[in-house]
């Protein structure tokens, strides 16, 4: 089963009398272990596509299937549960919960799911932090971490619930190139090790060699 299927997905925003077409008849299939790089200039619709794939935005037209879930038909409530269980996000700006430690930030999704017992969740969070090279920072608050460390905590947070699809929006833009490369390598490594699907948005073509496949987007139109 593919991790993501987009069929004729359109997203428009009303703008005065006319409308802005952010995504135009997009068709895309991402197999369940593929890392896909989505590249394109600013305003081309990358974030829009990611948001629709992750159930954050609803498409104006078309059909979206994520790991067998036909989310185009989901209610807001179902989408909330879907996001919690099925997708992992790494946002453009790292937005950690300021009063939680690195470990607690990683566990926040598990806590929201109310699923895993505390002990198991904690062990898993510690293992993730270890893999991300943050074992010694587990007890620190976000304010006490560097930009790169925060980004890594955010990656841990996205992986915590073992999602079927990982969506990464331009994680490198806030970091310098070396650090950006490291973070990207880390994400790819983690995703590959888990054999999960991922879409990684970037406007930096140098980053695409990490991906199994690259798709370009211009003015809301996908080109293979």
């Amino acid at each position, binding site marked *: 089963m593919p991790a993501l299927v987009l069929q004729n997905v359109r997203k428009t925003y009303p703008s005065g009398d006319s409308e802005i077409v952010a995504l135009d008849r997009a068709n895309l299939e991402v197999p369940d272990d593929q890392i896909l790089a989505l590249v394109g200039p600013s305003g081309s619709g990358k974030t829009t596509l990611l948001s629709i794939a992750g159930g954050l*935005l609803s498409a104006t037209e078309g059909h979206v299937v994520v790991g067998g879930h036909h989310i185009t038909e989901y209610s807001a409530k179902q989408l909330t549960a879907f996001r919690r269980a099925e997708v992992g996000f790494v946002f453009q700006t790292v937005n950690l919960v300021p*009063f939680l430690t690195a470990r607690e930030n990683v566990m926040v999704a598990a806590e929201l799911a109310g699923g895993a017992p505390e002990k198991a969740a904690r062990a898993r969070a510690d293992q993730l932090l270890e893999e991300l090279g943050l074992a010694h920072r587990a007890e620190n608050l976000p304010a006490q971490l560097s930009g790169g460390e925060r980004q890594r905590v955010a990656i841990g947070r996205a992986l915590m619930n073992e999602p079927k699809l990982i969506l990464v929006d331009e994680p490198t833009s806030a970091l310098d190139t070396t650090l950006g490369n490291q973070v990207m390598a880390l994400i790819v490594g983690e995703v590959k090790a888990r054999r999960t699907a991922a879409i990684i948005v970037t406007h930096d073509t140098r980053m695409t060699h990490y991906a199994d496949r690259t798709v370009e987007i211009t003015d809301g139109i996908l080109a293979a």
Partner: protein
Amino acid sequence: MRLALRELRRSRRRFVPTTGALALLVVLLLMLGGLLDGLYIGSTGALRSQDDELVTFDRSARESTLRSRIEPDTRAAIEAVPGVRGTSGFGIALVGADVPRTDELADAAVMGYEGRVGGVPAPPAPGRAWADRSLEARGVRVGDVLRVGPTRIPLRVIGWVDDTNYLQQGGLWVEPGTWRTVLAESRPGAAVGDDVFQNVWVDVAPGADPARVAAAIDAATGTTRTITRAEAVLALPGIREQNATFTQIIGVTFLVAGLVVALFFALLTLERTPMLGVLKALGASSRQLVGALMTQTVAVTVIAFVTGGVIALGLDRLIPPEVPLVVTPDRAGFVAVGVFVAAVIGGAVSLRRIIRIDPASAIGTGT
């Protein structure tokens, strides 16, 4: 929700000003309520401790015990009314009492009674009195001889009774003859003859309707006005005004408490909208986030109430005994419930904003 309590603990400092302000409002509410209760208790005890349901005044006295006179023949007419099982005469003289070992005059209400007053034993021998325990704070002791009125009539205190004061004056309960002497000496113009009282309290026969009996009494005498004990309490000078004034101030204070909470959580919600958006994107439901807000509201209220309560208890000890402050468990419960309701309503103001936060805002699209 655990997340909400964790924030409360870790970001304690940002919650301190609001919790502190709320605690001070709790102190104010307890003090205002305590004063209202103290004034009420100290004004009305003599009437509230009566056993009988109805009390008869002379009609021209307009429900004032001190102005009223009931002659023996009127009393006989009252006793003949069907549904009246018995009557007891009652009268009050407000005097200053000279307390041994002190230079001050204590305000006292000398009450002549014939029995049927709950909490007060049978009338003592002439020249003796049961004293209200509040007089203890004025230096009175059991066995003392108080000298009351301008001619310093001696009254020996033979024991304590509780909650029997009249218009903030300490109750001294005496047999009717002693009361008549005190009244004649302290206010010669108001002196009454033998067997005359100011009020007659009416014992209504079981099964009889008090309202009907009251109407029948006034019809039979033609010169009286008979009301219930509760009505007599409210007819005391100042009681209605006191209640209305304090109730308004207390109401406004609850309103301020609600506004403090509303403003604080509205600002807090505004400030953390981006974070709440991220939590929604990660799968937090609006219900969870609203639950977190309410958890914090309740926690802040509980802490504020406990802090305010402790401060109020401390102040209560410092306040001099002549201030009629009485903090009852009922009043504390009322304040607790009132502040809780005000805070929950205040917190709920931010509810809509939280529900309307778009999870898509976390990723940079959407509004």
